[in-house]
């Protein structure tokens, strides 16, 4: 123990030095931090409870996704049966329905059954690793084809939708211009959004919750308002309600089912003002395909009305006074500048493939966060000083060595957290304080053991040696149990608790290093240079 080799001393010193160096950026004010070279820009992140901001957990409406999946398949079936090369190629079908979680339809001419199956087969794909396809195609009653989604197909549909949803939410949040948002998928059907420094999450929720499925559809002028009010509408049309606060008197419009232009054909959307009324509106531009369709339809329907439908609700239904050429339009409604801007961002980023609802929200104001940091850091410093004083009073020189190691420990924890870009939360500060308390435990164990061995009449060298070796065993076991607890917190905990577990785990590892190895280096050096005949401990 006393032959502490030189390479070991050098190695430990380097680690301690690195610890101090890497912890420095975390103490610097933002400005000084940003002037550092890129490689040195690693610091401890502040959790939302300290920095202030919003944490949102969004859950996808899987039932809604399944419904969309079925509707899409229904469309696919229609198109596939129509054939590519004219009316001769058509397969006559009937009784097409998507009830009961699958698609079923009747092939009128039994001779075409195989051909129909063939065409559908090429529309389905393999899903997952099991070799399953995404849809099962079965023939029942010799004339009816039933398509049912397989579990692998459904799982893949959810996974794809969630990936797309995450990307779209990412685009939308980034368009808000907030700093360092975090958007990650969690579990099967969830997305976590964390935006630091945000005071009011209402706008954020408005923005990311919107599916933003935009459709332009013609108003059915043949529908009789009285009939429609009773729920009867012409074939090929449907009743679409107005969005909240829209529509002058009428609660709904009767619209053609066919979609004239949809949101996918947009190339840009921007908040602007209506030149006549000065109201905030959203200006949109179509791509070339969309522009020509829009021009054609509006030219054919001068004097009629079309409706702008967002997420299944009518926003407005203006009259077509003249053909609209040039491929741009304005979406009007009772918008505020903020809501028009939010809609523009949503439209630009594309429609969400699935409806998302906020199932958990935690927002902390930056002021409360700042207050927590100040009080937490002050309490942490005072607690540390109190413990350091106690150690010094109880163990003298050996307490001093332990204290020095403890200070190094603080730097090391910060340095490692910075290196991993870990997040410091409020419970994390508590974890820090607890670590300080627990870190001295190792030194208490060692020092008490040295006291004991001295009492038994051992000489200083031997007492110190035994103190370290005998105590190390208990220190090791004790810390393993703490790591078990911390690991479980990390796995099962969320947000702030994860932060607590991270600090605790790092603290346990570094404190064993500083409290055992580093203090031993100090003690060994002192013993070697002074050769004391008695120890005051």
């Amino acid at each position, binding site marked *: 123990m006393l032959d502490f080799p030189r390479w070991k001393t050098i190695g430990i010193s380097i680690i301690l030095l690195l610890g101090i160096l890497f912890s420095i950026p975390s103490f610097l004010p933002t400005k000084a931090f940003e002037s550092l070279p890129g490689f040195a820009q690693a610091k401890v992140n502040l959790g939302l409870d300290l920095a202030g901001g919003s944490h949102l957990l969004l859950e996808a409406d899987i039932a809604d996704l399944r419904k969309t999946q079925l509707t899409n398949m229904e469309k696919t079936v229609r198109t596939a049966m129509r054939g590519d090369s004219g009316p001769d190629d058509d397969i006559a079908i009937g009784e097409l329905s998507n009830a009961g979680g699958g698609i079923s339809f009747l092939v009128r001419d039994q001779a075409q059954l195989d051909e129909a199956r063939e065409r559908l087969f090429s529309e389905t794909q393999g899903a997952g690793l099991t070799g399953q396809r995404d849809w099962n195609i079965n023939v029942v009653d010799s004339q009816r084809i039933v398509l049912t989604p397989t579990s692998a197909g459904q799982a893949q549909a959810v996974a794809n939708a969630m990936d797309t949803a995450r990307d779209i939410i990412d685009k939308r949040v980034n368009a808000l211009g907030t700093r360092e948002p975090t958007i990650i998928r969690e579990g099967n059907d969830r997305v976590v959004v964390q935006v630091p420094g945000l005071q009011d999450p209402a706008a954020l929720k408005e923005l990311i919750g919107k599916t933003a499925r935009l459709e332009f559809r013609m108003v059915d002028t043949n529908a009789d308002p009285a009939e429609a009010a009773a729920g009867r509408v012409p074939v090929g049309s449907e009743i679409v309600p107005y969005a909240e606060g829209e529509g002058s008197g009428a609660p709904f419009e009767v619209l053609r089912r066919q979609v004239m232009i949809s949101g996918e054909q947009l190339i840009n959307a921007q908040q602007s003002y209506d030149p006549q009324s000065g109201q905030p509106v959203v200006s949109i531009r179509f791509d070339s395909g969309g522009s020509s369709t829009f021009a054609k339809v509006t030219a054919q329907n001068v004097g009629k009305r079309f409706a702008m439908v967002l997420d299944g609700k009518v926003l407005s239904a203006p009259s077509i006074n003249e053909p609209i050429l040039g491929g741009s339009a304005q979406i009007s409604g009772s918008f505020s500048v903020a809501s028009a801007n939010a809609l523009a961002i949503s439209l630009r980023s594309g429609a969400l493939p699935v409806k998302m609802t906020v199932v958990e929200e935690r927002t902390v104001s930056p*002021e409360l966060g700042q207050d927590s940091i100040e009080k937490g850091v002050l309490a942490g410093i005072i607690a540390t000083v109190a413990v350091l004083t106690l150690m010094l009073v109880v163990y003298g020189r050996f307490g001093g060595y332990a204290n020095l190691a403890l200070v190094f420990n603080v730097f090391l924890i910060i340095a490692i957290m910075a290196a991993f870009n870990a997040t410091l939360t409020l419970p994390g500060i508590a974890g820090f304080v*607890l670590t300080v308390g627990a870190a001295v435990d190792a030194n208490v164990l060692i020092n*008490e053991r040295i006291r004991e061995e001295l009492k038994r009449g051992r000489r200083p060298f031997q007492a110190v040696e035994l103190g370290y070796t005998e105590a190390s065993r208990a220190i090791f076991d004790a810390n393993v*149990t703490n790591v078990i*607890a911390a690991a479980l917190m990390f796995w099962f905990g969320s947000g702030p608790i994860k932060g607590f577990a991270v600090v605790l785990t790092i603290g346990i590892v570094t404190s064993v290093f500083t409290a055992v190895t580093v203090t031993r280096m100090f003690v060994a050096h002192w013993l070697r240079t002074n050769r004391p005949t008695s120890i005051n401990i």
Partner: protein
Amino acid sequence: MRLLKLVPDDTNYDFLKWRKLASFMSFFLVVVSIALVAVKGLNLGIDFVGGQSVRVEFTQEMPPIEDIREAVREIGIGEATIQQFGSDSAVSIRTALPDGDKAAAERAGQQLVAGIQKAFPTAKTGSVETVSGKVSEELLRTGAISLALAMLGISIYIWIRFEWQFGVGALGRLFHEVALTFGFFAITQLQFDLNSVAALLTIVGYSLNDTIVVYDRIRENLKKYRKMDIVPLLNLSINETLARTVMTSVSILLALGVLLVMGPDVIFGFTAAMLFGVFVGTYSSILMSTPVLVWLKVGPHSFVPRTVAGIEGGERVERKDDGAVV
């Protein structure tokens, strides 16, 4: 320089003498704690029951709690639980989730904030939290699982490192501490939320830390003094580690005490629970974790192979490895 000794040298207290009393006390306290949880119930936070929680700070004088309650009632989203934070001019207002669809839950949170700001224009909302019923059920489940796994995992670790009797002792002690902490939450009606689970896990980890130190010494003494009876041996082990137990507990109580008094009120409950746990843990280390070993008949044979024991039977046996599981 004369150094401070928290515990005098060479103590020889007969702790085991009180083992029946201590065990009875502990058993009694565990029963009381469980009864308290059953009767008074835990003040479950929205993490575990769902709902909205808003923290409101009053920059000027705080209105009476009744006024706040009335203001929330007028919003029409149900009865509120209002809790004051320490001496601060801040309260937490909690309401249950409205039944039915999730969108309604979202709106209710906004309504709560808007309603409070209307009733008390000078008030500031420090934090807003909304947890849906589904998420809160999951959080409750994972919280319970992690606590159970921690207790089990750590006990198994001790069983592997020591002997099965020690594992049982550790598990019993953990159960004792966790039950008492639950009782603490029931009697103080401090909000029980995710942070409380973290506090419980910390208590579990810390408490085991203590157990291990004592058990390690017992193992060492069992090998060292092979002829000694188990009761005096346990007493000796506790006395030998007493200085350490007290010193570490005092350090941690000191650190947590400062955090409790001066730290942010947001984590008051978290710190209070840990403080309580450490306090109970100290008592357990001294009086609680050893009687089990007497009843489960731990002896020198638990660690040293019988054959070797027969031949040597002396005062000191060379240790071959640390674990020494036979």
